């Protein structure tokens, strides 16, 4: 105990420092210091990532070679079906434009202004799934902004913003909640990340079947409506259950995201009100 007592003053100093940094973090005093640190260390992190990412990719792919082959076969089939759908949808879109022009109707697009950003690193544990991107407040990014994959699927939203860096909470983070609905049957629910980076549609009541597409709903004011999130991978529970248990499969492989798009034209209502998303 005498030996431990020699650490007492040091433990006290550590506790005081922890309290001070937490206090400084809560009141935004730590933000500028962290911004400078992130800017200074960005080349180091980029360099390390460039060296180790190919090695990690090689190791990961070597272990998954059979599942990748199967996935590739399924993707080829799906791609063919999607190409056919695309042709039909393009024709329908042209027809819709003609009708809109004839009826003098103008509709707002859901594209918005998107800012491309590179993923610097990803912090992924069974409870957290956070990306760091190389864009920040100097690029017009604000907390709460929506982040999409390069193909336009919902990835998450911005939580912390520094001058040249932002942190993005992915939809698979167990703290993430997104108000959503199924595209086909308009069943509403909350897409929430679960432990182990799983994704589920909570509080869903109604008809949901495997393969249904889940998209964002504008109800919460935090996301624009109609952004694709995931496909329903399994449904359990029957009419006697209050809510269905719906598991989802994200449309994008989150671990492979290198470039993301920040929807800068959509500012969530919570950000406008000055609250944390």
């Amino acid at each position, binding site marked *: 105990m005498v*030996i431990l007592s*020699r650490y007492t003053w040091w433990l006290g100093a550590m506790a005081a420092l922890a309290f001070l940094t937490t206090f400084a973090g809560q009141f935004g005093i730590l933000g500028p210091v962290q911004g400078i640190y992130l800017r200074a260390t960005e080349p*180091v992190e980029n360099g390390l990532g460039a060296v*180790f990412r190919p090695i990690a990719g090689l190791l990961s792919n070597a272990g998954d070679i059979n599942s990748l082959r199967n996935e590739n076969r399924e993707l080829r089939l799906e791609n063919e079906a999607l190409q056919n759908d695309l042709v039909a949808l393009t024709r329908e879109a042209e027809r819709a434009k003609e009708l809109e022009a004839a009826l003098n109707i103008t509709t707002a697009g859901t594209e918005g202004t998107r800012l491309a950003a590179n993923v610097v690193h990803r912090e*992924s*544990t069974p409870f957290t799934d956070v990306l760091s991107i190389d864009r920040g407040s100097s690029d017009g990014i604000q907390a709460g902004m929506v982040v999409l994959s390069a193909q336009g699927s919902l990835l998450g939203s911005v939580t912390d913003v520094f001058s040249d860096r932002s942190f993005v909470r992915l939809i698979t983070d167990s703290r993430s909640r997104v108000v959503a609905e199924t595209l086909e049957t308009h069943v509403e629910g909350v897409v929430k990340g679960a432990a182990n980076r799983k994704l589920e549609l909570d509080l869903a009541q109604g008809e949901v079947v495997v393969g249904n597409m889940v998209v964002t709903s504008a109800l919460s004011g935090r996301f624009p409506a109609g952004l694709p999130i995931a496909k329903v991978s399994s449904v359990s529970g029957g009419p006697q259950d209050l809510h269905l248990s719906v598991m989802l499969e994200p449309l994008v492989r989150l671990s492979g995201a290198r470039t993301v798009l920040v929807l800068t034209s959509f500012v969530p209502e919570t950000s406008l009100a000055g609250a944390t998303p």
Partner: protein
Amino acid sequence: MMYAVGLISVVLIASLQVSVAPLFPISGAEADLGLIAILGTAIIAGPRAAMLVTPALALAIGMAGSRSPGLMLVAYAAILPLAAFVEDLPYPLGRFPRLVFVAVFAGMWGRVLLGIAAMASGGDFAVRALLFQVLLPGLAFDLVLIAAVFAATQAAGIRPRRFTLQRAGWLP
């Protein structure tokens, strides 16, 4: 010069922790390079150097990632006192088993703390995931690394330093 090398090493380890360690997960868990670096510093340079490295690493890892620097300080603060306590235990244990004991309990403390913080901030209350996906694989990872550090010091002929402080004080 020594402080400059120390500072660069701290920044490098923090960058490795946030940008490289997540690329090599075992069942969702990653190695705690901060813990390994603090123990490695204590073995090679003694506890006083580790007392400086601990807050620097905690702050650097906290600021480089999305974890709270305050929480990282609390997580790492336990390492050195625990090491001193284990060293003082009246059991006939060798240097390496004592080091393993410290790595396991300090790693457990840090991971449980971060897991509870994630749960408290709105995450799922998933004790099973915390145990089987975070704690066990993470601790196994740490043990492999600490064994490698210990073996490297032995191979280099470095005699491991004691964790016990001979007197209170700050600077080495």
